[in-house]
């Protein structure tokens, strides 16, 4: 076997192994570190700057946990009034990985190396091209950027930030404290 052939075959094997690993991770709902690194850069632009980098990284970590703990095929709440039996759809984690790879390549250089305005422009273009119109109530798998934004902006933490007050939406609260105007943050 010629040296060039050997190297080509070894590279092919490496690519297949690598792709297989990505697929297995995606099936298990695990976002690989490379995707998470890009997502952290996305979060720094897509989430409020008041959070600071440390907090936006934490939001990404919680989002990754959410993806990891997602289960397909589980019975969903069957509504009231016009009930229907439904199960959760598979979460297209592979799409997330591909979307993040596309974002990383979209600017001609790594996303992280771009300025804030350029990064924002890429995200806007990405969402326009993907025709994402609305913020879902919770991540749906439509697009990783809108899902991350929905994940944060529908949280109790974001609600407090919006109103600049300690509301504690959906958290365990004292009834008497609920009777008072929420304290400022």
């Amino acid at each position, binding site marked *: 076997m010629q040296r060039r052939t050997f190297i080509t075959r070894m590279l092919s094997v490496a690519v297949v192994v690598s792709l297989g690993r990505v697929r297995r991770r995606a099936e298990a709902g695990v976002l690989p570190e490379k995707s998470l690194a890009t997502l952290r850069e996305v979060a720094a*632009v*897509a*989430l*409020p*700057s*008041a959070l600071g980098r440390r907090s936006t990284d934490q939001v990404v970590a919680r989002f990754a946990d*959410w993806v990891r*703990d*997602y*289960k397909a095929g*589980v*019975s*969903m*709440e*069957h509504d*009231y*009034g*016009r*009930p229907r*039996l439904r199960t*959760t759809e598979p979460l297209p984690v592979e799409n997330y990985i591909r979307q993040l790879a596309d974002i990383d390549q979209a600017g001609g250089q790594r996303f992280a190396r771009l300025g804030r305005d350029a990064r*924002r422009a890429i*995200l*806007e273009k990405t*969402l*326009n091209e993907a025709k*994402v*119109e*609305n*913020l879902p109530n*919770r991540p749906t798998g439509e697009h990783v950027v*809108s899902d991350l*934004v929905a994940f944060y*902006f*529908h949280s*109790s933490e*974001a*609600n407090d*930030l*919006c*109103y600049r*007050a300690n*509301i504690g*939406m*959906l*958290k*365990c*609260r*004292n*009834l*008497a404290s*609920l*009777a*008072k*105007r*929420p304290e400022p943050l």
Partner: protein
Amino acid sequence: MPTFETDVCVIGSGISAAMLVEKLSELRPGTTITVVEAGNAIFDFSNRIKYRQRNLDYGENPWPGDFIEDQLADGIICHTMAVGGQALLWGSACNRFSEEDLRLKSLYGLAVDWPLSWEELEKAYCEAERRLNVSGEPSPYPEDRRSAPYPQPPTPMSYNLRELKVWAEKSGLLFSVLPVATNLTASAGRGACCAFSTCVPVCPTGARYSPDFTFRKLIAQKKIALHDRTLIRRLVLDAARPTIAAAQGVHRDRPDETVEYRARLFVLAGGYAWSPHLLLLSACSRFPNGLANSSGLVGRYMTGHKFVSAFASIDRQLYGGQSDVQSLISRKYLRCRAGGPYVRHDTRVWESTVGREPRLRDEHKRVLLGDDLLEDWRTRAKGGSVRLRSYYDVHPSPDSRLTLNPSTRNRWGDPMPKIEHRFDDATMAREAAVQEHIRKLFAELARADNGQILTTSVSNYLDHPAGGCRMGNEPAASVCDSYGRTHDHENLFVVGAPNSPTGGCTNGALTFVALALRSTDRIAQDLGWT
């Protein structure tokens, strides 16, 4: 065939059943009571906080296994079939009907009078409120007088709700905090309310009453036996007399084996769908149209109430996310003047975030991200949003029916129920005017604080459905007497929602429980006599 002997066999395990067996075990200690339920007993309270979180995060059913895939009815409003029934996921609203509901024919020439007096029902209401540990405040309307105070004070109003009360009362209507079966302090093995705001579908502390607590307590005290996962498929007549001899069914884990329950007295407590369904399924040569159905009225006069909902925007600063489950009620329009236009409805007010949620695109379709998104949200969060709703009174025609649907069957070949609501002529004739009255009222409410109605909609289903085995004094015009005893079979009672001749115009659960508790008095008497 496995056969179980018991004094009382209760079929169904919702809130009416829970209250009935609790009271019966007190009135007749030593009576053997067997509760048979097709669904599962979901007695894993310790998992509720986890289920709640999964529901919030992923939309998963917080009551896993609370339905039976091939035991579904066409036209029902909830698929839950488990020990506790729909009261596993109710909001715990405990409104009383008004005196007028019982005298529709006498006062207005409409529908039918109920076969009991307001004083009798009011006494049963007090008992229901005590057993459910209802928190509430007296209505500001003197017609809503009560003979006993609520067992708990009212739920403290959230800041938002206090603001909304000020706003809403500018219309001239008077509001009070909705009475609810929710513990303000820990009691009866259930925790205190922590304002989690997920009463529907699941309360992680158990503060919001659900019947599973009652059943667990009674089982631990050995006062009842609970047979879950057991579907009763038919009632069997005594060979000689028109009484019920047995209930036959199957345990879902042993689908090929019939099980039989023999009892002195049978109580159907399966709610508006499954109680009339079982009677129709139990047709036999002596009762070819179904048991208890000499009148031909089993499965007829299916009732409930329609509703108009609206969202409004007001110039009053609210804090979104405080508590969208707490609400106010005005009972002003629960009664109307005889001789005037017939308009009866309740009026409810909640905080809302409609029109003030975070969004991905602005009105020019420009993508919003990061600080832009937050700023847009903050701008739109200035002011407040309100949810309004009125349940209004509609009266069923005899063709408002539950029938057996031959095209949908369970695994045993039993036809499933199909419910189609129809209204009487008077209801149809006034419907547009009633809806217009409610729309005008909402507009009047919204006028304060520069409010604007954002959207209005009319329900496409009846809430708090009931009927199907209506009570009455005349056997030819009703299925049961005022205690739920069927006219045709002296040892067969139907309790709770199916007894209601009409659906009222406010939440029905407390009324269904009150009727079931009143039935229990008669059942206990019967057990004493026999």
